[in-house]
């Protein structure tokens, strides 16, 4: 039987765990340990499913949250902080296949790299979208000289 206490005990080596709610555990870890933390959650804590990967922009850092769940119905959120000047975290799409599509989405919207993802192509933004603009970053503003897709018209 997997309980909150076994989860915090098992994941102790990866960072500090806190219980946010009756069925939620949040653990702060680092990009180089996140793959191991996911493997432990899968093998020892019976997590068989990734709910989603959330991404946030904190100004100087980005944060990724991997929300995992299993038959115990407790959500384990693994939080990872990334440096803004070089935002990159190893892919988890080989451990959790659904992560592939979420990583592609985060790459589109935040410009975070996931080394090891075999197919980090555009999925959410249209093909005309400028390559170096990431709209969900807090400092993004549409540039007048950029073309964001659609039909080009002469401005009157």
């Amino acid at each position: 039987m997997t309980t909150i206490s076994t989860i915090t005990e098992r994941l102790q080596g990866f960072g500090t765990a806190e219980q946010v709610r009756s069925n939620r555990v949040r653990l702060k870890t680092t990009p180089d340990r996140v793959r191991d933390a996911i493997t432990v959650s899968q093998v020892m804590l019976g997590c068989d499913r990734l709910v989603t990967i959330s991404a946030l922009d904190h100004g100087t850092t980005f944060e990724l949250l991997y929300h995992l769940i299993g038959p115990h119905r407790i959500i384990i959120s693994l939080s990872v902080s990334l440096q803004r000047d070089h935002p990159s975290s190893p892919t988890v799409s080989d451990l959790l296949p659904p992560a592939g599509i979420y990583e592609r989405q985060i790459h589109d919207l935040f410009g975070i790299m996931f080394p090891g993802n075999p197919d980090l192509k555009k999925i959410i933004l249209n093909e005309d979208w400028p390559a170096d603009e990431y709209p969900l970053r807090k400092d993004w503003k549409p540039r007048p000289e950029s073309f964001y897709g659609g039909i080009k018209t002469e401005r009157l």
Partner: protein
Amino acid sequence: MAEVVIPIGPQHPALKEPVNFRIIADGEKIVRLELDLSYNHRGIEKAAEQRNFIRVLPLLERVCGICSHSHATNFAKGVEEIMALEIPPRARYIRTIIAELERMHSHLLWLGVAAHEIGFNTLFMWTWRDREAVQDTLEEMSGNRVHYGMNEIGGVRRDLTPAQIQAALSRLPVLEERVRQYRQMVESEETLLMRFRGVGRLSKEEVLKYGAVGPTARASGVDYDVRKDDPYLAYAEVPFNVVTDTSGDVYGRTRVRVGELGESLKIVRYCLEHIPEGPIRADAPHTAPEGETLSRYEAPRGELAHFIRTNGTDKAERIDIRTPTLANWTSVAVCLVNQNLADIPVIVAAIDPCLSCTSRLTVVNRNDGTAGVITFDELRRRRDRQWDRQELR
């Protein structure tokens, strides 16, 4: 035989919404699927960061025209959790009633679309006719057919009158009878069995591996259902069963959805009969303290997740929306492999894909063939006339 790439979409008669598939086929068999969803991004998450909670609700309701209530409720529920705000029981029941009516209209719509995809248009007409009874109930309760606008932070915006409850209850027996018939049809009608059985099969292991959600997952025996796992609204008090199936194919997904129609009817009946008296909203503060939550909701298509982070102001720092369809695409790409090209529409339709929906009203006059758009005032007058007739006021 050499592999051939067949592009389908973004504009294609078999697709209801813009999406692009690149099907790599070997003869009639599908080898691989590549997917491009980039035709519909509207920047709602970005827009939601700029608006206060009151203005975010109608915006999120417009993420989808079918699960509009799901998005608004899920967001309101998340913000209320961060505010540590308890909403009145009557509001919880009203939200649940709308949620289950929404599931019913969505599943009836799906059953029609699935029937249409295999050319069984009679069933399509039947289910869409029955869906009108659900739509009428929703319109009576909320004033709208699509975007109900029932939610606000702290409760709901409209109360149910005893006459509305009676009108809703009086429609249920017919729907119950129809759902019984659909269940029978799905299990015995030769046309459905031939096109649904063994098509697009996913094993339980595959569902878990590829992260499918909702009826797609439950059809393969995976009993994830947020309503039971992490009860919200009134689901902890309402008796209902999680419908699962073991066949894992389109047939199983159909059986699960028809089964859920029956369960939703039971929930709606229970809630209408046991709705507690009392206020319908609690006073909510304008700002939320710093905090975060992963708000989960069982939308008609599966688990919907909103990750909400607040920063002490009246705006959210981040709203991350993961729709059930996004979670289901990976499994579609898997279950199409080795299937027949002709089964693409029904397999894709079997997850009930929802990319985004819009709604527009044009009215055609049958007598002289003129078409036009009804003004809001005229719509209101007609609604009032109808309401007077039904003595709902």
